[in-house]
Protein backbone atom coordinates (compact mmCIF):
# COMPACT_ATOMS: atom_id res chain seq x y z
CA UNK A 1 0.00 0.00 0.00
CA UNK A 2 1.19 3.49 -0.75
CA UNK A 3 0.93 6.60 1.34
CA UNK A 4 -1.62 7.98 -1.10
CA UNK A 5 -4.39 5.97 0.59
CA UNK A 6 -6.32 8.17 2.97
CA UNK A 7 -6.34 6.82 6.53
CA UNK A 8 -10.13 6.62 6.61
CA UNK A 9 -10.32 4.37 3.56
CA UNK A 10 -7.52 2.28 4.91
CA UNK A 11 -9.28 1.77 8.21
CA UNK A 12 -12.47 0.80 6.38
CA UNK A 13 -10.55 -1.71 4.31
CA UNK A 14 -8.95 -3.22 7.40
CA UNK A 15 -12.37 -3.60 9.04
CA UNK A 16 -13.84 -5.25 5.94
CA UNK A 17 -10.99 -7.74 5.82
CA UNK A 18 -11.39 -8.53 9.50
CA UNK A 19 -15.11 -9.10 8.96
CA UNK A 20 -14.45 -11.53 6.10
CA UNK A 21 -11.91 -13.43 8.20
CA UNK A 22 -14.33 -13.57 11.14
CA UNK A 23 -17.06 -14.94 8.87
CA UNK A 24 -14.71 -17.70 7.71
CA UNK A 25 -13.86 -18.54 11.30
CA UNK A 26 -17.54 -18.86 12.13
CA UNK A 27 -18.17 -21.48 9.41
CA UNK A 28 -17.14 -24.08 11.98
CA UNK A 29 -19.71 -22.93 14.52
CA UNK A 30 -22.37 -22.73 11.82
CA UNK A 31 -21.51 -26.32 10.85
CA UNK A 32 -21.81 -27.54 14.43
CA UNK A 33 -25.12 -25.76 14.93
CA UNK A 34 -26.29 -27.04 11.55
CA UNK A 35 -25.43 -30.64 12.39
CA UNK A 36 -27.24 -30.40 15.72
CA UNK A 37 -30.32 -28.71 14.22
CA UNK A 38 -30.60 -31.20 11.35
CA UNK A 39 -30.18 -34.22 13.60
CA UNK A 40 -32.54 -32.86 16.27
CA UNK A 41 -35.25 -31.87 13.78
CA UNK A 42 -35.32 -35.18 11.91
CA UNK A 43 -34.98 -37.22 15.09
CA UNK A 44 -37.97 -35.36 16.49
CA UNK A 45 -39.96 -36.33 13.40
CA UNK A 46 -38.88 -39.93 13.96
CA UNK A 47 -39.98 -39.80 17.60
CA UNK A 48 -43.44 -38.67 16.52
CA UNK A 49 -43.89 -42.12 14.98
CA UNK A 50 -41.74 -44.25 17.30
CA UNK A 51 -41.69 -43.50 21.00
CA UNK A 52 -38.26 -42.56 22.40
CA UNK A 53 -38.70 -45.20 25.10
CA UNK A 54 -39.22 -47.92 22.51
CA UNK A 55 -36.21 -46.66 20.54
CA UNK A 56 -33.86 -46.53 23.52
CA UNK A 57 -34.91 -49.73 25.26
CA UNK A 58 -36.10 -51.97 22.42
CA UNK A 59 -34.00 -55.05 21.72
CA UNK A 60 -35.28 -55.74 18.19
CA UNK A 61 -34.21 -53.74 15.14
CA UNK A 62 -36.03 -54.51 11.93
CA UNK A 63 -36.08 -51.57 9.55
CA UNK A 64 -36.54 -53.42 6.27
CA UNK A 65 -38.66 -56.45 7.16
CA UNK A 66 -42.19 -56.19 8.52
CA UNK A 67 -43.22 -56.01 11.32
CA UNK A 68 -40.95 -52.99 11.67
CA UNK A 69 -39.21 -52.59 15.03
CA UNK A 70 -36.91 -49.76 16.00
CA UNK A 71 -35.14 -50.76 19.20
CA UNK A 72 -31.63 -49.36 18.88
CA UNK A 73 -29.97 -51.67 21.43
CA UNK A 74 -28.81 -54.33 18.89
CA UNK A 75 -27.08 -51.63 16.80
CA UNK A 76 -25.45 -50.04 19.85
CA UNK A 77 -24.31 -53.39 21.27
CA UNK A 78 -22.79 -54.44 17.91
CA UNK A 79 -21.03 -51.09 17.60
CA UNK A 80 -19.60 -51.35 21.11
CA UNK A 81 -18.60 -55.00 20.62
CA UNK A 82 -16.59 -54.12 17.51
CA UNK A 83 -15.06 -51.12 19.28
CA UNK A 84 -14.01 -53.29 22.23
CA UNK A 85 -12.47 -55.96 19.96
CA UNK A 86 -10.65 -53.14 18.16
CA UNK A 87 -9.32 -51.76 21.45
CA UNK A 88 -8.28 -55.25 22.58
CA UNK A 89 -6.01 -55.28 19.51
CA UNK A 90 -4.98 -51.64 19.37
CA UNK A 91 -4.34 -50.89 23.07
CA UNK A 92 -1.59 -53.47 23.72
CA UNK A 93 0.02 -53.10 20.29
CA UNK A 94 -0.31 -49.31 20.23
CA UNK A 95 0.97 -48.81 23.78
CA UNK A 96 3.96 -51.14 23.34
CA UNK A 97 4.77 -49.41 20.05
CA UNK A 98 4.49 -46.04 21.79
CA UNK A 99 6.82 -47.15 24.61
CA UNK A 100 9.30 -48.40 22.04
CA UNK A 101 9.21 -45.14 20.09
CA UNK A 102 9.34 -42.89 23.15
CA UNK A 103 11.76 -44.81 25.39
CA UNK A 104 13.87 -47.29 23.47
CA UNK A 105 14.21 -46.28 19.82
CA UNK A 106 17.11 -44.16 18.64
CA UNK A 107 16.25 -40.91 16.88
CA UNK A 108 17.07 -42.56 13.54
CA UNK A 109 14.84 -45.58 14.12
CA UNK A 110 12.03 -43.31 15.22
CA UNK A 111 12.37 -41.16 12.12
CA UNK A 112 12.01 -44.33 10.10
CA UNK A 113 9.13 -45.91 12.00
CA UNK A 114 6.89 -42.89 12.59
CA UNK A 115 6.21 -42.26 8.88
CA UNK A 116 5.30 -45.94 8.51
CA UNK A 117 2.75 -45.63 11.32
CA UNK A 118 1.45 -42.49 9.65
CA UNK A 119 1.16 -44.50 6.44
CA UNK A 120 -1.15 -46.91 8.26
CA UNK A 121 -3.17 -43.93 9.51
CA UNK A 122 -3.43 -42.60 5.95
CA UNK A 123 -4.77 -45.78 4.35
CA UNK A 124 -8.44 -45.19 3.44
CA UNK A 125 -10.76 -47.22 5.65
CA UNK A 126 -12.38 -48.87 2.64
CA UNK A 127 -8.99 -50.49 1.93
CA UNK A 128 -8.92 -51.96 5.43
CA UNK A 129 -12.44 -53.27 4.88
CA UNK A 130 -11.19 -54.97 1.72
CA UNK A 131 -8.29 -56.43 3.73
CA UNK A 132 -10.83 -57.79 6.25
CA UNK A 133 -12.82 -59.74 3.67
CA UNK A 134 -9.90 -60.93 1.53
CA UNK A 135 -7.30 -61.72 4.22
CA UNK A 136 -8.45 -61.50 7.85
CA UNK A 137 -11.71 -63.49 7.56
CA UNK A 138 -10.24 -66.31 5.43
CA UNK A 139 -7.17 -66.44 7.69
CA UNK A 140 -9.31 -66.80 10.83
CA UNK A 141 -11.49 -69.38 9.12
CA UNK A 142 -8.58 -71.53 7.97
CA UNK A 143 -6.73 -71.40 11.30
CA UNK A 144 -8.68 -71.07 14.52
CA UNK A 145 -12.37 -70.64 13.64
CA UNK A 146 -13.45 -73.07 10.89
CA UNK A 147 -17.14 -72.18 11.41
CA UNK A 148 -16.65 -68.47 10.67
CA UNK A 149 -18.93 -66.98 8.01
CA UNK A 150 -17.93 -64.31 5.48
CA UNK A 151 -19.19 -61.55 7.84
CA UNK A 152 -18.22 -61.36 11.48
CA UNK A 153 -17.83 -58.79 14.24
CA UNK A 154 -14.43 -60.34 14.95
CA UNK A 155 -12.91 -59.68 11.51
CA UNK A 156 -14.37 -56.17 11.52
CA UNK A 157 -13.02 -55.53 15.03
CA UNK A 158 -9.52 -56.67 14.05
CA UNK A 159 -9.23 -54.28 11.09
CA UNK A 160 -10.80 -51.41 13.04
CA UNK A 161 -8.12 -52.19 15.64
CA UNK A 162 -5.44 -51.72 12.96
CA UNK A 163 -7.17 -48.52 11.95
CA UNK A 164 -7.12 -46.92 15.42
CA UNK A 165 -3.70 -48.29 16.39
CA UNK A 166 -1.84 -45.22 15.02
CA UNK A 167 -4.08 -42.95 17.12
CA UNK A 168 -3.06 -44.71 20.34
CA UNK A 169 0.59 -45.11 19.33
CA UNK A 170 1.16 -41.52 18.30
CA UNK A 171 -0.82 -39.74 21.05
CA UNK A 172 0.56 -42.02 23.80
CA UNK A 173 4.07 -41.45 22.50
CA UNK A 174 3.50 -37.69 22.73
CA UNK A 175 2.25 -38.12 26.31
CA UNK A 176 5.30 -40.19 27.29
CA UNK A 177 7.75 -37.82 25.66
CA UNK A 178 6.17 -34.94 27.58
CA UNK A 179 7.19 -36.57 30.87
CA UNK A 180 10.16 -34.50 32.10
CA UNK A 181 13.56 -36.13 31.72
CA UNK A 182 14.37 -35.39 35.36
CA UNK A 183 11.74 -37.88 36.54
CA UNK A 184 13.38 -40.67 34.54
CA UNK A 185 16.86 -39.71 35.66
CA UNK A 186 15.73 -39.61 39.29
CA UNK A 187 14.33 -43.10 38.99
CA UNK A 188 17.41 -44.47 37.23
CA UNK A 189 19.66 -42.83 39.82
CA UNK A 190 17.79 -44.67 42.57
CA UNK A 191 18.80 -47.92 40.91
CA UNK A 192 15.63 -48.79 38.96
CA UNK A 193 16.08 -50.60 35.66
CA UNK A 194 14.77 -48.90 32.55
CA UNK A 195 11.72 -51.22 32.52
CA UNK A 196 10.94 -50.32 36.15
CA UNK A 197 11.34 -46.65 35.28
CA UNK A 198 8.87 -47.00 32.41
CA UNK A 199 6.38 -48.99 34.45
CA UNK A 200 6.50 -47.05 37.70
CA UNK A 201 7.48 -43.53 36.63
CA UNK A 202 6.85 -42.79 32.95
CA UNK A 203 3.53 -44.62 32.48
CA UNK A 204 1.89 -43.27 35.67
CA UNK A 205 3.03 -39.74 34.77
CA UNK A 206 1.68 -40.10 31.23
CA UNK A 207 -1.45 -41.95 32.31
CA UNK A 208 -4.08 -39.32 31.56
CA UNK A 209 -2.59 -38.69 28.10
CA UNK A 210 -2.56 -42.42 27.44
CA UNK A 211 -6.16 -42.75 28.64
CA UNK A 212 -7.16 -39.83 26.42
CA UNK A 213 -5.62 -41.55 23.40
CA UNK A 214 -7.51 -44.76 24.17
CA UNK A 215 -10.82 -42.94 24.50
CA UNK A 216 -10.21 -41.04 21.27
CA UNK A 217 -9.45 -44.37 19.58
CA UNK A 218 -12.72 -45.74 20.95
CA UNK A 219 -14.56 -42.74 19.51
CA UNK A 220 -12.96 -43.39 16.10
CA UNK A 221 -13.87 -47.07 16.30
CA UNK A 222 -17.51 -46.24 17.13
CA UNK A 223 -17.77 -43.85 14.16
CA UNK A 224 -15.89 -46.08 11.73
CA UNK A 225 -18.00 -47.00 8.74
CA UNK A 226 -16.61 -48.61 5.60
CA UNK A 227 -14.42 -51.30 7.17
CA UNK A 228 -17.40 -52.33 9.28
CA UNK A 229 -19.88 -52.24 6.38
CA UNK A 230 -17.76 -54.65 4.36
CA UNK A 231 -16.61 -56.96 7.15
CA UNK A 232 -19.40 -57.13 9.73
CA UNK A 233 -22.40 -57.36 7.42
CA UNK A 234 -25.90 -55.95 7.73
CA UNK A 235 -27.59 -58.33 10.13
CA UNK A 236 -29.10 -56.37 13.04
CA UNK A 237 -29.31 -59.09 15.68
CA UNK A 238 -28.66 -58.70 19.38
CA UNK A 239 -25.66 -60.91 20.07
CA UNK A 240 -22.46 -60.89 22.06
CA UNK A 241 -20.82 -63.60 19.97
CA UNK A 242 -17.99 -62.01 17.94
CA UNK A 243 -18.30 -64.75 15.31
CA UNK A 244 -21.77 -63.54 14.32
CA UNK A 245 -22.61 -61.17 11.51
CA UNK A 246 -23.87 -57.92 13.03
CA UNK A 247 -24.96 -54.45 11.95
CA UNK A 248 -23.45 -51.37 13.54
CA UNK A 249 -25.10 -47.94 13.69
CA UNK A 250 -22.92 -46.68 10.83
CA UNK A 251 -23.65 -49.78 8.72
CA UNK A 252 -27.39 -49.17 9.11
CA UNK A 253 -26.98 -45.58 7.90
CA UNK A 254 -25.09 -46.82 4.83
CA UNK A 255 -27.61 -49.59 4.14
CA UNK A 256 -30.53 -47.15 4.14
CA UNK A 257 -28.81 -44.54 1.98
CA UNK A 258 -27.63 -47.12 -0.58
CA UNK A 259 -31.10 -48.58 -1.07
CA UNK A 260 -34.10 -47.01 -2.78
CA UNK A 261 -35.67 -46.01 0.54
CA UNK A 262 -38.12 -43.11 -0.01
CA UNK A 263 -36.92 -40.00 1.82
CA UNK A 264 -40.23 -39.49 3.67
CA UNK A 265 -40.35 -43.05 4.98
CA UNK A 266 -39.92 -44.03 8.61
CA UNK A 267 -36.70 -45.87 7.68
CA UNK A 268 -35.15 -42.68 6.37
CA UNK A 269 -36.10 -40.83 9.54
CA UNK A 270 -34.56 -43.70 11.53
CA UNK A 271 -31.31 -42.94 9.69
CA UNK A 272 -31.26 -39.49 11.30
CA UNK A 273 -32.16 -40.86 14.73
CA UNK A 274 -29.31 -43.37 14.54
CA UNK A 275 -27.02 -40.59 13.28
CA UNK A 276 -27.98 -38.46 16.28
CA UNK A 277 -27.25 -41.36 18.63
CA UNK A 278 -23.86 -41.88 16.99
CA UNK A 279 -23.09 -38.16 17.17
CA UNK A 280 -23.91 -38.00 20.89
CA UNK A 281 -21.84 -41.10 21.67
CA UNK A 282 -18.73 -39.86 19.85
CA UNK A 283 -19.20 -36.33 21.25
CA UNK A 284 -19.29 -37.74 24.78
CA UNK A 285 -16.12 -39.75 24.19
CA UNK A 286 -14.32 -36.78 22.58
CA UNK A 287 -15.22 -34.46 25.46
CA UNK A 288 -13.99 -37.05 27.98
CA UNK A 289 -10.73 -37.37 26.04
CA UNK A 290 -10.31 -33.55 25.91
CA UNK A 291 -10.90 -33.30 29.63
CA UNK A 292 -8.23 -35.93 30.32
CA UNK A 293 -5.71 -34.13 28.08
CA UNK A 294 -6.36 -30.81 29.83
CA UNK A 295 -5.85 -32.43 33.23
CA UNK A 296 -2.63 -33.93 31.97
CA UNK A 297 -1.34 -30.54 30.78
CA UNK A 298 -1.99 -28.97 34.15
CA UNK A 299 0.45 -31.34 35.79
CA UNK A 300 3.52 -30.04 33.97
CA UNK A 301 2.80 -26.46 33.02
Amino acid at each position, binding site marked *: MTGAVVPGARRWR*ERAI*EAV*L*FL*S*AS*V*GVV*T*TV*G*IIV*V*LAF*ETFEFFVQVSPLEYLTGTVWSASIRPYAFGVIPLVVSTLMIAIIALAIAVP*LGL*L*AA*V*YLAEYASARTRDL*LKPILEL*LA*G*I*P*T*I*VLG*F*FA*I*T*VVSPLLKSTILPSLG*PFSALAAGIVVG*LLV*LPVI*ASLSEDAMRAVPRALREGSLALGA*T*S*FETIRKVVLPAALSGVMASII*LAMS*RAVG*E*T*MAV*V*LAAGTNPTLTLDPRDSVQTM*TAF*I*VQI*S*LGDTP*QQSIQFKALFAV*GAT*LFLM*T*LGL*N*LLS*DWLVRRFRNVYE
Partner: protein
Amino acid sequence: MSGLARAAEAPRFEPALMQRRLSGTLFYGACLAAIGLTLLAILLLLYDIFTRGLSHLDVDFLTGVPSRFPDRAGVLPALVGSLQLGILLAAIAFPVGVAAAVYLEEYARQSRLNQLLRTNIANLAGVPSIVYGIFGLALFVRALGLGYTLIAAALTLALLILPVVIISTMEAIRAVPPSQREAAYALGATRWQVVSGAVLPAAAPGIMTGTILAMARAIGETAPLILVGAVTFVTYLPGPFEGGYTVLPIQVYSWAARFQPAFQEISATAIIVLLALLVVLNVLALVVRVRLSRHLQW
Protein backbone atom coordinates in the same frame (compact mmCIF):
# COMPACT_ATOMS: atom_id res chain seq x y z
CA MET B 1 28.27 -55.82 64.94
CA SER B 2 24.53 -56.15 64.90
CA GLY B 3 24.15 -53.86 61.86
CA LEU B 4 26.32 -56.07 59.73
CA ALA B 5 24.54 -59.19 60.92
CA ARG B 6 21.20 -57.72 59.96
CA ALA B 7 22.56 -56.77 56.55
CA ALA B 8 23.76 -60.31 56.02
CA GLU B 9 20.30 -61.63 56.82
CA ALA B 10 18.62 -59.28 54.38
CA PRO B 11 17.61 -60.77 51.03
CA ARG B 12 20.50 -60.75 48.62
CA PHE B 13 20.50 -58.24 45.84
CA GLU B 14 22.07 -60.07 42.91
CA PRO B 15 19.48 -62.76 42.09
CA ALA B 16 16.68 -60.19 42.20
CA LEU B 17 18.66 -57.94 39.90
CA MET B 18 18.96 -60.77 37.40
CA GLN B 19 15.21 -61.23 37.50
CA ARG B 20 14.57 -57.51 37.16
CA ARG B 21 16.85 -57.33 34.17
CA LEU B 22 15.15 -60.37 32.64
CA SER B 23 11.69 -58.82 32.94
CA GLY B 24 13.12 -55.67 31.36
CA THR B 25 14.47 -57.68 28.44
CA LEU B 26 11.15 -59.50 28.05
CA PHE B 27 9.31 -56.17 28.00
CA TYR B 28 11.71 -54.80 25.39
CA GLY B 29 11.04 -57.95 23.36
CA ALA B 30 7.29 -57.36 23.65
CA CYS B 31 7.73 -53.77 22.40
CA LEU B 32 9.73 -54.98 19.41
CA ALA B 33 7.14 -57.69 18.73
CA ALA B 34 4.33 -55.08 18.75
CA ILE B 35 6.16 -52.93 16.22
CA GLY B 36 6.99 -56.02 14.16
CA LEU B 37 3.39 -57.25 14.16
CA THR B 38 2.11 -53.84 13.06
CA LEU B 39 4.64 -53.66 10.22
CA LEU B 40 3.76 -57.22 9.25
CA ALA B 41 0.06 -56.30 9.01
CA ILE B 42 0.88 -53.33 6.74
CA LEU B 43 3.11 -55.50 4.55
CA LEU B 44 0.48 -58.24 4.36
CA LEU B 45 -2.15 -55.68 3.36
CA LEU B 46 -0.01 -54.21 0.58
CA TYR B 47 1.16 -57.65 -0.57
CA ASP B 48 -2.41 -58.94 -0.80
CA ILE B 49 -3.60 -55.91 -2.78
CA PHE B 50 -0.71 -55.94 -5.22
CA THR B 51 -0.76 -59.70 -5.89
CA ARG B 52 -4.51 -59.55 -6.42
CA GLY B 53 -4.76 -56.39 -8.45
CA LEU B 54 -1.51 -55.62 -10.25
CA SER B 55 -2.18 -57.91 -13.23
CA HIS B 56 -5.28 -55.88 -14.20
CA LEU B 57 -3.51 -52.54 -14.07
CA ASP B 58 -3.11 -51.34 -17.65
CA VAL B 59 -4.16 -48.51 -19.94
CA ASP B 60 -7.49 -50.20 -20.68
CA PHE B 61 -8.30 -50.27 -16.98
CA LEU B 62 -7.43 -46.60 -16.53
CA THR B 63 -9.38 -45.47 -19.59
CA GLY B 64 -12.28 -47.93 -19.42
CA VAL B 65 -15.68 -47.62 -17.79
CA PRO B 66 -17.36 -50.07 -15.34
CA SER B 67 -18.86 -53.15 -16.89
CA ARG B 68 -20.83 -56.21 -15.90
CA PHE B 69 -17.83 -58.17 -17.06
CA PRO B 70 -14.87 -57.67 -14.73
CA ASP B 71 -12.36 -58.22 -17.57
CA ARG B 72 -13.64 -55.21 -19.48
CA ALA B 73 -14.20 -52.92 -16.52
CA GLY B 74 -12.25 -49.72 -15.98
CA VAL B 75 -12.03 -46.83 -13.54
CA LEU B 76 -12.02 -43.72 -15.74
CA PRO B 77 -15.24 -42.17 -14.36
CA ALA B 78 -14.11 -42.87 -10.79
CA LEU B 79 -10.59 -41.53 -11.36
CA VAL B 80 -11.86 -38.38 -13.04
CA GLY B 81 -14.50 -38.01 -10.33
CA SER B 82 -11.87 -38.24 -7.58
CA LEU B 83 -9.62 -35.68 -9.29
CA GLN B 84 -12.52 -33.24 -9.87
CA LEU B 85 -13.68 -33.73 -6.29
CA GLY B 86 -10.18 -33.10 -4.94
CA ILE B 87 -9.74 -29.87 -6.91
CA LEU B 88 -13.24 -28.59 -6.09
CA LEU B 89 -13.03 -29.29 -2.39
CA ALA B 90 -9.55 -27.77 -2.10
CA ALA B 91 -10.82 -24.67 -3.93
CA ILE B 92 -13.55 -24.38 -1.26
CA ALA B 93 -11.74 -25.48 1.89
CA PHE B 94 -8.40 -23.73 1.27
CA PRO B 95 -9.52 -20.06 1.25
CA VAL B 96 -12.07 -20.51 4.02
CA GLY B 97 -9.72 -22.57 6.19
CA VAL B 98 -6.76 -20.20 5.81
CA ALA B 99 -8.96 -17.14 6.46
CA ALA B 100 -10.40 -18.77 9.58
CA ALA B 101 -6.94 -19.68 10.88
CA VAL B 102 -5.64 -16.15 10.20
CA TYR B 103 -8.53 -14.72 12.17
CA LEU B 104 -8.01 -17.08 15.11
CA GLU B 105 -4.23 -16.60 15.27
CA GLU B 106 -3.73 -12.96 14.25
CA TYR B 107 -6.96 -11.09 14.92
CA ALA B 108 -8.96 -12.79 17.66
CA ARG B 109 -8.68 -11.25 21.10
CA GLN B 110 -9.01 -13.37 24.21
CA SER B 111 -12.79 -13.32 24.37
CA ARG B 112 -15.33 -15.95 25.21
CA LEU B 113 -16.62 -15.99 21.64
CA ASN B 114 -13.17 -16.64 20.21
CA GLN B 115 -12.49 -19.34 22.79
CA LEU B 116 -15.74 -20.95 21.67
CA LEU B 117 -14.62 -20.81 18.02
CA ARG B 118 -11.37 -22.59 18.93
CA THR B 119 -12.93 -25.32 21.09
CA ASN B 120 -15.56 -25.88 18.45
CA ILE B 121 -12.99 -26.53 15.72
CA ALA B 122 -11.23 -29.11 17.90
CA ASN B 123 -14.56 -30.82 18.52
CA LEU B 124 -15.53 -30.78 14.83
CA ALA B 125 -12.35 -32.70 14.03
CA GLY B 126 -13.72 -35.59 16.11
CA VAL B 127 -17.15 -35.84 14.46
CA PRO B 128 -17.41 -39.13 12.47
CA SER B 129 -17.27 -38.58 8.72
CA ILE B 130 -20.62 -40.25 8.17
CA VAL B 131 -22.30 -37.56 10.31
CA TYR B 132 -20.93 -34.95 7.86
CA GLY B 133 -22.55 -37.06 5.16
CA ILE B 134 -25.92 -36.83 6.93
CA PHE B 135 -25.50 -33.06 7.29
CA GLY B 136 -24.44 -32.69 3.64
CA LEU B 137 -27.51 -34.65 2.59
CA ALA B 138 -29.84 -32.38 4.58
CA LEU B 139 -28.15 -29.06 3.72
CA PHE B 140 -26.56 -29.24 0.27
CA VAL B 141 -28.54 -32.00 -1.42
CA ARG B 142 -31.98 -31.16 -0.04
CA ALA B 143 -32.22 -27.66 1.47
CA LEU B 144 -30.01 -25.89 -1.09
CA GLY B 145 -31.37 -28.06 -3.87
CA LEU B 146 -28.02 -29.08 -5.33
CA GLY B 147 -29.19 -32.66 -5.62
CA TYR B 148 -26.90 -35.68 -5.83
CA THR B 149 -24.09 -33.83 -7.61
CA LEU B 150 -20.33 -33.59 -7.40
CA ILE B 151 -20.57 -30.02 -6.14
CA ALA B 152 -22.72 -31.15 -3.17
CA ALA B 153 -20.15 -33.85 -2.45
CA ALA B 154 -17.28 -31.33 -2.64
CA LEU B 155 -19.05 -28.96 -0.25
CA THR B 156 -19.71 -31.80 2.21
CA LEU B 157 -16.09 -33.00 2.16
CA ALA B 158 -14.86 -29.40 2.37
CA LEU B 159 -16.69 -29.07 5.69
CA LEU B 160 -15.16 -32.39 6.76
CA ILE B 161 -11.56 -31.28 6.13
CA LEU B 162 -12.03 -27.66 7.19
CA PRO B 163 -10.99 -28.35 10.83
CA VAL B 164 -7.85 -30.13 9.58
CA VAL B 165 -6.94 -27.22 7.27
CA ILE B 166 -7.60 -24.67 10.03
CA ILE B 167 -5.58 -26.55 12.66
CA SER B 168 -2.56 -27.11 10.41
CA THR B 169 -2.66 -23.50 9.18
CA MET B 170 -2.85 -22.23 12.77
CA GLU B 171 0.22 -24.30 13.62
CA ALA B 172 2.10 -22.94 10.58
CA ILE B 173 1.18 -19.35 11.50
CA ARG B 174 2.20 -19.88 15.12
CA ALA B 175 5.62 -21.08 13.96
CA VAL B 176 6.36 -17.72 12.29
CA PRO B 177 8.67 -15.80 14.68
CA PRO B 178 7.14 -12.66 16.26
CA SER B 179 10.15 -10.70 15.01
CA GLN B 180 8.81 -10.99 11.45
CA ARG B 181 5.55 -9.33 12.49
CA GLU B 182 7.28 -6.71 14.61
CA ALA B 183 9.57 -5.74 11.74
CA ALA B 184 6.55 -5.26 9.46
CA TYR B 185 4.67 -3.23 12.08
CA ALA B 186 7.78 -1.11 12.64
CA LEU B 187 7.68 -0.22 8.94
CA GLY B 188 4.16 1.12 9.44
CA ALA B 189 2.22 -1.76 7.97
CA THR B 190 -1.41 -2.27 8.93
CA ARG B 191 -2.51 -5.55 10.46
CA TRP B 192 -3.64 -6.97 7.13
CA GLN B 193 -0.41 -5.85 5.46
CA VAL B 194 1.53 -7.67 8.18
CA VAL B 195 -0.53 -10.81 7.64
CA SER B 196 -0.48 -10.80 3.85
CA GLY B 197 3.07 -9.51 3.43
CA ALA B 198 4.97 -11.13 6.29
CA VAL B 199 3.05 -13.90 8.05
CA LEU B 200 1.38 -15.79 5.20
CA PRO B 201 4.45 -16.04 2.93
CA ALA B 202 6.47 -17.36 5.86
CA ALA B 203 3.76 -19.84 6.82
CA ALA B 204 3.08 -20.93 3.23
CA PRO B 205 5.02 -24.24 3.30
CA GLY B 206 3.13 -25.46 6.37
CA ILE B 207 -0.21 -24.25 5.04
CA MET B 208 0.23 -25.89 1.63
CA THR B 209 1.43 -29.17 3.14
CA GLY B 210 -1.48 -29.28 5.60
CA THR B 211 -4.00 -28.55 2.86
CA ILE B 212 -2.64 -31.16 0.46
CA LEU B 213 -2.64 -33.81 3.21
CA ALA B 214 -6.22 -32.89 4.16
CA MET B 215 -7.15 -33.23 0.48
CA ALA B 216 -5.58 -36.69 0.42
CA ARG B 217 -7.70 -37.64 3.41
CA ALA B 218 -10.86 -36.45 1.69
CA ILE B 219 -10.05 -38.34 -1.51
CA GLY B 220 -9.92 -41.59 0.49
CA GLU B 221 -13.30 -40.94 2.12
CA THR B 222 -16.21 -43.19 1.22
CA ALA B 223 -18.98 -43.07 3.82
CA PRO B 224 -20.10 -39.42 3.51
CA LEU B 225 -20.25 -39.76 -0.28
CA ILE B 226 -22.66 -42.67 -0.04
CA LEU B 227 -25.05 -40.32 1.78
CA VAL B 228 -24.67 -37.45 -0.68
CA GLY B 229 -25.38 -39.73 -3.59
CA ALA B 230 -22.23 -41.07 -5.23
CA VAL B 231 -23.38 -43.96 -7.38
CA THR B 232 -21.66 -47.22 -8.12
CA PHE B 233 -22.18 -47.70 -11.83
CA VAL B 234 -21.20 -44.73 -13.99
CA THR B 235 -20.25 -45.21 -17.61
CA TYR B 236 -19.80 -41.58 -18.68
CA LEU B 237 -18.16 -38.43 -17.32
CA PRO B 238 -20.70 -36.17 -15.61
CA GLY B 239 -20.16 -32.44 -15.05
CA PRO B 240 -20.03 -31.04 -11.51
CA PHE B 241 -23.68 -29.93 -11.51
CA GLU B 242 -25.01 -33.11 -13.13
CA GLY B 243 -25.98 -36.15 -11.12
CA GLY B 244 -24.50 -39.62 -11.33
CA TYR B 245 -20.88 -39.08 -10.33
CA THR B 246 -18.62 -41.66 -8.75
CA VAL B 247 -15.18 -41.67 -7.09
CA LEU B 248 -12.46 -44.27 -6.56
CA PRO B 249 -13.34 -45.38 -2.99
CA ILE B 250 -16.98 -45.89 -4.01
CA GLN B 251 -15.86 -47.94 -7.02
CA VAL B 252 -13.63 -50.03 -4.73
CA TYR B 253 -16.56 -50.59 -2.40
CA SER B 254 -19.04 -51.59 -5.07
CA TRP B 255 -16.69 -54.17 -6.58
CA ALA B 256 -15.50 -55.51 -3.22
CA ALA B 257 -19.09 -55.91 -1.99
CA ARG B 258 -19.83 -58.34 -4.84
CA PHE B 259 -17.80 -61.07 -3.16
CA GLN B 260 -16.81 -62.67 -6.49
CA PRO B 261 -13.08 -63.32 -6.92
CA ALA B 262 -12.93 -61.63 -10.34
CA PHE B 263 -14.56 -58.46 -9.01
CA GLN B 264 -12.38 -58.52 -5.90
CA GLU B 265 -9.36 -58.54 -8.19
CA ILE B 266 -10.40 -55.39 -10.04
CA SER B 267 -11.39 -53.90 -6.68
CA ALA B 268 -7.75 -54.43 -5.64
CA THR B 269 -6.63 -52.81 -8.92
CA ALA B 270 -8.82 -49.79 -8.16
CA ILE B 271 -7.24 -49.66 -4.68
CA ILE B 272 -3.79 -49.55 -6.33
CA VAL B 273 -4.93 -46.57 -8.43
CA LEU B 274 -6.33 -44.88 -5.29
CA LEU B 275 -3.15 -45.51 -3.28
CA ALA B 276 -1.04 -44.22 -6.18
CA LEU B 277 -3.09 -41.02 -6.21
CA LEU B 278 -2.56 -40.63 -2.45
CA VAL B 279 1.20 -41.26 -2.81
CA VAL B 280 1.36 -38.58 -5.52
CA LEU B 281 -0.38 -36.10 -3.20
CA ASN B 282 1.94 -36.96 -0.31
CA VAL B 283 5.03 -36.54 -2.47
CA LEU B 284 3.60 -33.25 -3.75
CA ALA B 285 3.16 -32.08 -0.14
CA LEU B 286 6.80 -32.94 0.55
CA VAL B 287 8.08 -31.20 -2.59
CA VAL B 288 6.00 -28.08 -1.91
CA ARG B 289 7.32 -27.94 1.63
CA VAL B 290 10.95 -28.22 0.54
CA ARG B 291 10.66 -25.77 -2.38
CA LEU B 292 8.67 -23.10 -0.57
CA SER B 293 10.83 -23.12 2.53
CA ARG B 294 14.08 -22.88 0.57
CA HIS B 295 14.15 -19.08 0.61
CA LEU B 296 12.98 -18.80 4.22
CA GLN B 297 15.56 -18.24 6.88
CA TRP B 298 15.60 -16.48 10.19
